[in-house]
């Protein structure tokens, strides 16, 4: 659905993106993460066909952003990190304007705004002015405006910023429902913990490049991440695991973060092999902070 090849983007005095390549399959939710100023927003704006690449190619649903920006806009919804609403208009009028401005035919406008309002849970607030809504409800209205025309691709820049825990949970549910409805979502976020709730892949952007050179699977039911700790330091800890055919994300003398099958027998065998090899295993369990650990393990790695 989204394909980026060797994307380079330059501001007059600096290069913001350098050789970014990625593929986002249809009906997935991919997270863009990275430090402040890494280039996430610039990348999202390039995906939204708002900024033309200096070089490289960005295609959305098979259309080149440089050649067909307007066609792409009809298939795309985008909510920037700092977005605005027409505070003096009611929710109904905000959604109506969004529907009109996306070219929805007059006879279909009422249905479109009712559906969008229902999806984002604003059906009972249609006559409230946008300026009177809470932060969480404003976020929902922003997303409602972005999806009123049923886009194929939805780009959200820091949608969870400033939301309370309940609103974040609601947001996760909403994003999953949009994916189920057939949309492809790219979400930029700083909050790693919640990405596991709805993302299938994570792309780390650092210094304008994809750290590690490829996306990282956020959650794999069959092959989760495990954290192994040993009581006595061993410099060959990582090497032993790799030699045993284990997918090692990161390892030092005391810890190893691995991706391994959930199969009980396979885990028991690995544990047995470790103990047999003299490693004093003090902990072996599914990592609760796997995403965060993966993130920090990738920061600093660059595309070859």
């Amino acid at each position, binding site marked *: 659905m989204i394909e980026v090849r060797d994307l380079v983007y330059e501001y007059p005095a600096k290069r913001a993106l350098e050789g970014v390549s990625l593929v986002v399959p249809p009906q997935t939710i991919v997270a863009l993460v990275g430090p402040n100023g890494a280039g996430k927003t610039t990348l999202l704006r390039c995906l939204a066909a708002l900024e033309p690449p*200096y070089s490289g190619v960005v295609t959305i649903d098979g259309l080149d952003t440089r050649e067909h920006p307007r066609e792409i*806009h009809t298939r795309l919804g985008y909510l920037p990190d700092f977005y605005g609403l027409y505070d003096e208009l009611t929710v109904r009028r905000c959604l109506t304007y969004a529907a009109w*401005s996306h070219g929805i035919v007059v006879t279909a406008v009422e249905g479109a705004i009712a559906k969008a309002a229902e999806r984002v849970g604003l059906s009972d607030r249609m006559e409230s002015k946008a300026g009177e809504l809470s932060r969480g409800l404003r976020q929902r209205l922003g997303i409602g405006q972005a999806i009123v025309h049923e886009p194929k691709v939805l780009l959200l820049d820091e949608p969870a910023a400033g939301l309370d825990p309940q609103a974040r949970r609601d947001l996760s549910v909403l994003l999953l429902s949009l994916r189920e409805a057939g949309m492809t979502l790219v979400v930029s976020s700083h909050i790693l913990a919640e990405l596991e709730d709805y993302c299938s892949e994570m792309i780390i952007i650092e210094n304008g490049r994809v750290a590690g050179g490829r996306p990282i699977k956020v959650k794999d039911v069959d092959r989760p991440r495990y954290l192994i700790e040993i009581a006595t330091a061993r410099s060959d800890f990582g090497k032993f695991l790799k030699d045993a055919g284990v997918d090692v994300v990161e390892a030092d003398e005391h810890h190893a973060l691995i991706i391994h099958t959930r199969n009980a027998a396979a885990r028991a065998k690995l544990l047995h092999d470790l103990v047999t090899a003299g490693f004093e295993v003090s902990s072996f369990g599914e990592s609760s902070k796997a995403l965060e650990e993966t993130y920090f393990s990738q920061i600093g790695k660059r595309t070859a």
Partner: protein
Amino acid sequence: MGPEFRRNLWLELTPRRVVFMIAILALVFFAAAVSGPSWTPYSAAETIYYLIVVIWGARNAGLSIVNEIRDRTWDLQRLSSISAAQMTLGKLFGSTIYNWFGGAICLTVMLVYGFAHGTPGSTILDLIYYVIVGLVAQAAALLASLVAIRRRSAHSRLDVFLYQFLGVVAAIAVAYVWEAADPESALLLGRKSSDVIPWWGAVVSARPFLLLSLAIFAGWILAGCYREMRRELKMQNGPLVWAAFLVFTGLYVAGFDAWLPHEAVMANWNVVALRLALASTTFAALTYVMVLLEPKDRVLYRWYASRIASGGVGLALWGLQAWIMSYGATVLVSLALIWWLFAQGYGAFYPAIAVAGLGFLTRDVSIFVFSSATRRRGDFVAIVALFALYVLIPAILDGVGLKSMLPLFYPTPSNPVWLGPAIVWGEAIVAVAFAVSRVALGGKRVASGSWQS
């Protein structure tokens, strides 16, 4: 009616505001009607029209996009399916619909008053003029804001005042031109009014000619707004409209050869030379205006170079900036003028001045590109540099008795005649080299964590 216009109707024409406008204007016209002969409803309507439609309307038009940027809704509009024409008209007439509502009441009063006093023909022409002056003021303010947002995203109150000011200046220019055909106003200003205007050798009736000219230039301003809006909506413009504007402006201005002071510097020039000189000067002026207004985008110039290097000359030409096209037109017409002057046996004096003028233009645009390619306030630096080159240094040289060096700083005769142009082109080549190196080499690095993404 486009979505943007309808949204503005929701926001601008609320019942309370409509009633307020009607009540205030009714009070004003009633006061004018009862206050005596010096202040009539017509003169009150005229004054209020200027206040509401020209001054306030220009402000609202200048704010129409700036407010979207401030309120962070502009990106959402840019991503919509609203066409450039709908967005332009929606912004221009939607943001000023309340002003036009008040203005329509004023025009109605003027119309009724004019018909009641037995001057229907003149009143109708006046009404057309008033609509044009309002349209020009608002469209010029919108155009100024559209040009400005290409250069930067932050807009202060001063910036908005500047857009409004430019709109009002455009309106004053329209009013000034209109007065040339208005015997009463011209008399009051101590100028000679004229019923006829010589243009392209023909003598045309002033009032219809000026009205048509104003309408056409209002159309060009609207076309400018439309093109800038297309650019904002990520649509490619192509060079044809600007090329058409250059051709139109060159031909329009060249027709005023009869207005030039034949007895002074251009003694004995024939009509072709005069018209070529007028056209080339117009193009040079447009080059300066556009090189100041357009962003000197280093990335864009590199993109031109990379397209040309990869054989995509057509693609690069299709994306040419207006100042580059204006510069090209200046060079072409100036070369034609130089050739014509030689062919007609005018000697080397005038051609040398024209060659020097081209050299100065080349140097100056290079200074703009060099200064602005990597700096935010590069245009200001370029203007200061040009002020020093054209005013300060010549004044100092003149003061210390070095007048012979003046050809270095502006087109003046030199001895030998080609020495001045040769030196100027030396300056121009150095300036071009600096500009090209700044565009090609400077600042191309991958930044670290401190970037603004």
